[in-house]
């Protein structure tokens, strides 16, 4: 009887904990939305269209319209859109004034001397506020009394701007992809400290292969893909050695991966001679900077696909269940017929291979490979996994939790950037958040008791 209610209570707490991370992410998003709420200008095209509507409504087609812009691409886009809209509605007398306030003043003087009048002065949020236009009736009484039009601004959080959100996802792609492997390793009862160094190693190796073997700047797509695959395979092989040492010689994962971390990092410096390798073709940035489907960055798309596969594998395959079993109780798992060594080995191979992939994405984002990449990433990755609710003692955790954990960390970093918090303070806050998350997890599992 007693155990019934206890069991129910702990189940309830677990369910709440699963939602808890999502709620935390939403709350963070809400917080940063509120504090970054600012005046926003519409895009040139949208602003021009809205402005044209108002002009059409208030003025007839005979009115003389000035469109004042600077010599900038965005301004020109604004002017062109506006001109087109007005032309379509029958306006004939449209004049574009391009340049600095000085140019506008000269033009105004010229119009005043000729005795021409102006009805409307349209500009964007900058040009329409030029001082020149502030007191026209007194300074240029000869041109009539033109009305000044500017696009309507609106209030919207910087945090929620599409660019910013895409930016967040793009920035966490590398960490989130590697965190898949880390989640798998941690659920199986281990830890992998070598992933940060493997990023550097794989980035350097890929770029070196492209530079020295695939034809440097002239390298073709197939060759580049091949170089990337080789780097991933080499990383996976390193993971195989790591896993082999851990499973067959029963060495502690912490020490083995610590050793691998130093070796991989050192090798990256040795291979590259300590310099970054940048002699690679422009096409190489497709993975890191490109966006081929509906404007979603390729790296983000890749991340999403990998998470789907991993989620399915963990939940719906034998391999996934074996991972949980091995991490939960390896002896009981072995006596239930689980090939525990093979399962653990596969976890380390996967982790290393994904770290290799992460290195390639990073090299593609930065269009070069340097041995300095990925420093401290292992810690951010572990933090994402733990914040996502995976237990460091193994046997428990969720792949999608890790994705949320990665987002939580990225959102905090991004939000602090938007709030102009300096980077040292950011580190302190991030550390606090990680501690808080682990503390909450502990309380969720064991209550407030010390033992």
């Amino acid at each position, binding site marked *: 009887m007693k155990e019934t209610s206890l069991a129910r209570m702990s189940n309830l707490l677990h369910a709440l904990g699963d939602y808890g991370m999502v709620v935390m992410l939403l709350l963070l998003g809400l917080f940063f939305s509120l504090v970054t709420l600012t005046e926003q200008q519409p895009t040139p095209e949208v602003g021009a269209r809205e402005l044209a509507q108002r002009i059409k409504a208030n003025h007839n087609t005979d009115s003389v319209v000035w469109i004042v812009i600077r010599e900038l691409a965005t301004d020109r886009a604004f002017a062109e859109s506006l001109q087109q809209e007005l032309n379509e509605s029958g306006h004939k007398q449209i004049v574009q004034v391009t340049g600095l306030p000085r140019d506008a003043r000269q033009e105004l003087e010229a119009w005043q001397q000729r005795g021409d009048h102006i009805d409307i002065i349209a500009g964007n949020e900058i040009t329409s506020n030029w001082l020149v236009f502030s007191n026209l009736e007194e300074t240029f009484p000869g041109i009539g009394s033109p009305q000044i039009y500017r696009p309507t601004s609106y209030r919207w959080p910087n945090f929620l701007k599409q660019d910013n959100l895409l930016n967040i996802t793009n920035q966490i792609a590398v960490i989130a992809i590697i965190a898949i492997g880390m989640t798998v390793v941690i659920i199986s009862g281990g830890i992998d400290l070598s992933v940060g160094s493997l990023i550097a190693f794989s980035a350097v190796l890929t770029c070196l292969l492209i530079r020295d073997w695939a034809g440097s700047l002239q390298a073709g797509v197939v060759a580049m893909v091949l170089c990337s695959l080789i780097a991933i395979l080499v990383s996976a092989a390193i993971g195989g050695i790591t896993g082999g040492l851990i499973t067959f010689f029963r060495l502690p994962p912490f020490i083995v991966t610590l050793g691998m971390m130093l070796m991989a990092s050192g090798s990256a410096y040795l291979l590259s001679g300590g310099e970054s390798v940048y002699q690679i073709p422009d096409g190489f940035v497709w993975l890191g900077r490109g966006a081929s489907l509906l404007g979603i960055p390729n790296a983000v798309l890749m991340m999403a696909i990998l998470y789907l596969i991993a989620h399915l594998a963990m939940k719906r*395959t*034998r391999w996934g269940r074996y991972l949980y079993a091995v991490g*939960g109780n390896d002896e009981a798992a072995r006596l239930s017929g689980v090939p525990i060594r093979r399962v653990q080995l596969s976890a380390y191979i996967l982790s290393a291979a994904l770290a290799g992939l992460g290195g390639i994405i990073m090299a593609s984002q930065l269009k070069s490979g340097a041995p300095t990449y990925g420093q401290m990433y292992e810690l951010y990755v572990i933090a994402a996994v733990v914040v996502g609710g995976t237990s460091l003692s193994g046997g428990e955790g969720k792949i999608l939790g890790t994705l949320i954990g990665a987002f939580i960390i990225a959102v905090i970093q991004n939000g602090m950037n938007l709030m102009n918090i300096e980077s040292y303070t950011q580190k302190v806050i991030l550390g606090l958040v990680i501690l808080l998350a682990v503390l909450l997890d502990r309380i969720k599992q064991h209550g407030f008791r010390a033992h």
Partner: protein
Amino acid sequence: MPMPASQRPKGCDLSEMISPLLEMRGIGKSFAGIQALKGVDLVLQEGEVLALMGENGAGKSTLMKILGGAHLPDEGELKLRGNRILVDSPQKARSLGIAMIYQEFNLIPALSAAENVFLGQEIIQHGLIQHEAQESRTADLLKELGMPFDPRTPCQRLSIAQQQSVEIARALSQEAQILVMDEPSAVLTPPEVKRLFAIINQCRKRGLGLIYIGHRLDEIFEIADRVMVLRDGQPAGSFPIDQCKRHELIHCMVGRPMDQEYPKRKGHPGPVRLKVSELRRGKAVQGVCFEARGGEILGLAGLVGAGRTELARLIFGADRSEAGTIQLDGRTLSLRSPAEAIAAGIGFLSEDRKLQGLITQHSICSNFGLPNLNQFTRAGLLNLGQEEASFNQYAETMQLKRHGPKQRASHLSGGNQQKLVIAKWLARRCEVLIFDEPTRGIDVGAKYEIYQLMHALADEGKVILMISSELPEMLGMADRILVMHQGRLTGEITHPASSNQQAIMEMAVA
């Protein structure tokens, strides 16, 4: 500790006037609205051994946790020699002279016996621990307990019985007046149990009051002065041991009459199915040969360390044999891992369900599914619905008490955990089932159900190997008994029904 003479009332009959050593009156405790204990009275006299009995979940441990300061009672009071006491922490309990010895010992493996005995109350002079003084005191205590061994030995190198004596020595060194022992004999061999009882008698002579929690009736009748039974959190009876009969005690515990402890069965052993010859591994198993028939419950008796579990692990592929063959239905098996043994149709129910049988923090359904996942896999993907349906089906036939498939295995009682392990092997269609201590830590009612299940399995023609240190269980359940000693088979009892414990013991120490 006997009371100093000065405190005793003069000129009265002592036995009537002195308040009992410990009184617990009207103890009630509920957790999250559920009554775990209600109106429980417990009285313990000096120099008395009180056996506390009851099924799992009857409230024995809750009552003892209240005594030990781990829980505060909602109702009722505790008196020590007539004085009301408030036990609000384990530290307080210790300072009042209440010592608890749990099944899992509270020893630090790397520290020596003496260091463990004096942990937290070190003998210190000039800020330094006086190791020699501690060691000589420990040696004295151990000698008094009849377990003389070097007090400098690290606890990890001590036998279970020796570790237990370290725990008792610690209690004595802390001037304990009340000693609570939770199933102390469960981990001991019969000779070790004998020695434990000698120790308990020592304690009794010193005037300690002992509370002995246990399931084995024979032992209770041997050691206890009085027995108290709890059922569903309430007192179900308390009687002097010489006024109570076995079946009455069982009746009292389970709340229904039980005529027999072991279900009746007429075995019909079929043809030989499992054949083991010349199996060897180190000193533990030295050339064991035997045959087991379908429909037969074959008992493996012997002392702890005789090599029974080691032999079972060889047959299950958990360890590799150095020589010898295992044949099942005429087919020779070469087993390099449990996975291969399972594939061949062998299932193993280990003595330690929590560490080896189950992944306790995972759900009961996924524990059930673990060896059976290939049955539920189509095109590489698991069919979770099918797994759950299969689980429910087996759970139903086993009468597994559960809240749902997602319940954690740790929240099952011992008997239901054992049923869960049986269910997972049955779903795997195992033909040979090795039960290692099948009813350890399982209460009387559930034991009977496990026995019935074992009978049913044997009747289906499966081979059942049973290892048990409880000789009555061995004699009551097995169709045939093999006795092991020091890695070898030393005897066979073909008609257990007409044999006795003495016969087994003679072969086991031969």
